[in-house]
């Protein structure tokens, strides 16, 4: 029994169930990373099978292996450089013809190939019958039927992988003929290689010739770098071949070869595939006639979006309540570790800094997870592709891509996964534009601020409308900004919109939970790391330096209150409970007043004062400015900070005490402006950091930060000034 490590690569079209098979093979033994230099995810895992150690890499889903997109380049480079022992091509067997296009290219490359005919339950249901043996011979690779989401056929697949790995290299290769003319030109090119380099196998030479004839830029670069003696000869020969073929056949070799591949596939399938059921409209098509209907499509889509958001808020609210209670309890427990009324820095750090800060983020987790759950269901069922179709026309008008709408949707949960979701946009201009405007989709962190302000300043019946207004303003600003960006900074052609419409599928429970968690986890990580760190920093900034001499002599006042209490309890008809309550109230308000003085004296307070002239045009004062400093780290922190500035102690967005303070200090117009500013300004430091990572440059991240801040300032100033002038809400 040998303990041999076998390197396996999984290739396949998007929507072929590749990831499901990968999960079935590797189970929990998975790891996600990045291919160096690009933001393409690298999923790898391991599996022990019959005493062998399998190292499995899930390559990005691709339709082809040309150098035209990052995913394809990554996939191909992996195959060429890492030389896996076996490559499994996951194929949607209910859709053989197109899926085999990739398989044929893998055959051309000569990699040790195993074909997994996945989704074989669907193809069986559709009445397809395959002559596996003949097909396998024609394609030069073993075929295994699998049903990924039911874990069927996996063991047989792995068995075949082992057998293939053990085979010697020479015998398997199948050579496809591209027709007399092309084959002749290929021979000519291959001849040049022979004279240069005998170490290349004949099969490899043929592959290189095919690529060069197609005009593959990556392979060109590779050849040029190898320093062949006859490089110029080679270039001339390629040019001659291409010209000749264009003249004789009427098209560029790239198209001719593509056509021949399909020809080969259809020939092989004609011999080996029979279908017993008349292929007419499938169920998916019938559903689509309603879903993508010109008249019904958009209303249906809007209805679904409304349902999604309604779900996240109504179902999520009770859960938010539980989490709030938990943190309240936690705070109480921690507080009880110290004697009442004591003034410890550590206690303050734990309570105000950490529990307050982190709690404010985690409380939104139910909302976010529900939103991501809904999105995962829409994606896995195949609806998202239809949504992109419906949205494409609108998106096109603002200069964006149909696919841009998905990151925007995710942005309503949290901007961070939204920015990461822009990876699906191939065009850099589309991608950057979407990344820059994504923060204008009001995320759930800002909801805390709205939840605090709206009930405080506006009558009950206006609540829904106000919230809706804020969200819509965000969306409108995003549209305008995108249009502006696309006609100035990111001027240029948008990526042509070509997207597969996968058949509707029943999402698996496991699948949607995994997808939901992948994004929710990012939000939690933000809470656990950045927010925790920032909460501590902010706590320091707002607690220090501490005043030595206060405006009010708090100690004396506290002593007096205690004395009064003692006196009151001596009386014969003393109401002990009332006296106690009175004492606590007095001590509390003294402590809070002291806190407020401290806050004004602290670093954060001073910065707030210093910023005051800048925020005055918006109607803000230094207190709001101070809270906004904290909010830059994470918007949720704004509420807690306002609580401290107004000496309301531990405040959250439900705090009536804080709301009272706000209404007595600010007008509804100012309150609205606060919400506007929160909406438009950069959501949080983490967003800027993610933008930097996804765009690979500080330039765009800082542009995003600067742009959003300036936009926020301008819009809010205009709103406030105009409102004041017209006397609205003052």
């Amino acid at each position: 029994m040998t303990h041999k490590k076998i390197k396996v690569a999984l290739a396949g079209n998007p929507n072929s169930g590749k990831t499901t098979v990968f999960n079935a093979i590797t189970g929990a033994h998975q790891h996600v990373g990045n291919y160096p230099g690009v933001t393409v995810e690298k999923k790898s895992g391991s599996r022990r099978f019959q005493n062998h150690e399998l190292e499995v890499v899930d390559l990005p889903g691709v339709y082809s292996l040309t150098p035209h997109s990052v995913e394809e380049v990554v996939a191909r480079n992996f195959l060429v450089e890492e030389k896996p022992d076996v490559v499994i091509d996951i194929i949607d067997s209910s859709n053989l013809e197109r899926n085999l296009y990739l398989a044929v290219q893998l055959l051309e490359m000569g990699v040790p190939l195993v074909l997994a005919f996945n989704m074989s339950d669907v193809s069986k249901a559709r009445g397809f019958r395959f002559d596996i043996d003949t097909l396998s011979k024609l394609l030069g690779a073993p075929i295994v039927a699998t049903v990924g989401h039911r874990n069927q056929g996996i063991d047989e697949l792995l068995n075949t992988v082992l057998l293939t790995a053990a085979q010697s290299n020479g015998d398997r290769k199948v050579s496809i003929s591209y027709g007399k003319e092309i084959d002749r030109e290929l021979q000519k090119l291959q001849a040049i290689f022979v004279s240069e380099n005998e170490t290349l196998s004949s099969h490899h030479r043929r592959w290189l010739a095919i690529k060069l004839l197609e005009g593959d830029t990556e392979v060109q670069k590779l050849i040029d770098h190898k320093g062949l003696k006859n490089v110029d000869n080679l270039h001339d020969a390629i040019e001659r071949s291409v010209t000749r073929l264009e003249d004789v056949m009427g098209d560029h070799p790239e198209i001719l070869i593509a056509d021949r591949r399909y020809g080969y596939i259809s020939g092989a399938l004609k011999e080996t595939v029979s279908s017993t059921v008349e292929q007419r409209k499938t169920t998916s098509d019938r559903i689509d006639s309603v879903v993508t209907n010109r008249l019904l499509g958009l209303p249906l889509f809007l209805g679904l979006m409304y349902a999604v958001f309604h779900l996240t808020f109504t179902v999520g609210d009770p859960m938010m309540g539980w989490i709030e209670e938990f943190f309240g309890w936690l705070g109480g427990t921690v507080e009880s570790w110290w004697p009442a009324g004591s003034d410890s820095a550590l206690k303050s750090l734990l309570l105000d800094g950490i529990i307050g800060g982190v709690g404010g983020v985690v409380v939104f987790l139910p909302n976010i997870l529900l939103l991501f759950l809904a999105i995962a269901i829409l994606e896995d069922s195949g609806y998202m592709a239809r949504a992109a179709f419906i949205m494409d026309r609108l998106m096109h008008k603002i200069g964006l891509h149909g696919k841009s709408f998905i990151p925007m949707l995710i942005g309503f949960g949290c901007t961070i996964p939204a920015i990461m979701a822009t990876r699906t946009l191939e065009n850099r201009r589309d991608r950057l534009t979407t990344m820059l405007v994504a923060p204008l989709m009001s995320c759930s962190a800002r909801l805390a601020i709205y939840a605090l302000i709206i009930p405080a300043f506006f009558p009950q019946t206006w609540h829904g409308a106000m919230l809706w207004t804020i969200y819509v303003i965000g969306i409108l600003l995003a549209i305008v900004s995108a249009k502006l960006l696309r006609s100035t900074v990111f001027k240029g052609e948008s990526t042509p919109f070509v997207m597969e419409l996968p058949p509707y599928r029943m999402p698996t429970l496991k699948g949607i939970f995994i997808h939901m968690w992948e994004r929710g986890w990012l939000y939690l990580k933000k809470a656990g790391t950045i927010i925790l760190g920032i909460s501590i920093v902010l706590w320091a900034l707002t607690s220090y330096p501490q005043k030595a001499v206060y405006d009010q002599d708090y100690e004396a006042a506290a002593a007096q209150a205690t004395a009064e209490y003692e006196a009151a309890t001596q009386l014969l008809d003393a109401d002990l409970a009332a006296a106690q309550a009175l004492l606590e109230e007095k001590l509390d308000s003294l402590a809070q007043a002291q806190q407020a003085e401290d806050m004004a004296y602290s670093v954060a307070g001073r910065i707030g004062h210093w910023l005051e002239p800048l925020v005055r045009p918006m109607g803000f004062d230094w207190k709001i400015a101070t809270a906004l400093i904290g909010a830059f780290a994470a918007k949720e922190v704004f509420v807690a900070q306002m609580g401290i500035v107004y000496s309301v102690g531990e405040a959250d967005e439900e705090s009536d005490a804080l709301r009272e303070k706000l209404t007595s200090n600010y007008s509804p117009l100012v309150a609205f402006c606060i919400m506007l500013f929160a909406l438009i300004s950069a959501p949080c430091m983490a967003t800027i950091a993610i933008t930097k990572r996804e765009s690979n440059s500080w330039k765009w991240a800082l542009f995003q930060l600067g742009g959003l801040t300036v936009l926020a300032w301008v819009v809010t100033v205009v709103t406030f000034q105009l409102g004041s002038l017209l006397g609205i809400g003052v």
Partner: protein
Amino acid sequence: MPLAMAGMGHHLRVVKINAGHGLCERLSSMGLVPGAILEVLSNGFRGPMIVAVKGSRVMLGRGMALKVLVE
């Protein structure tokens, strides 16, 4: 005629694709090669359209649909 002008339900054959390399290859890998037979499933004459080709369904933006010539 350009695919963009095709009516719903029509079965057509791709004749030529007026596009650069990258685009051509992209379309090829989705099944749209000269000689391929497709069926128009949805064409609103504004915005993208949906065609069935080689067993799968593909969405094409208007701009793309104008570059694919069919008969």
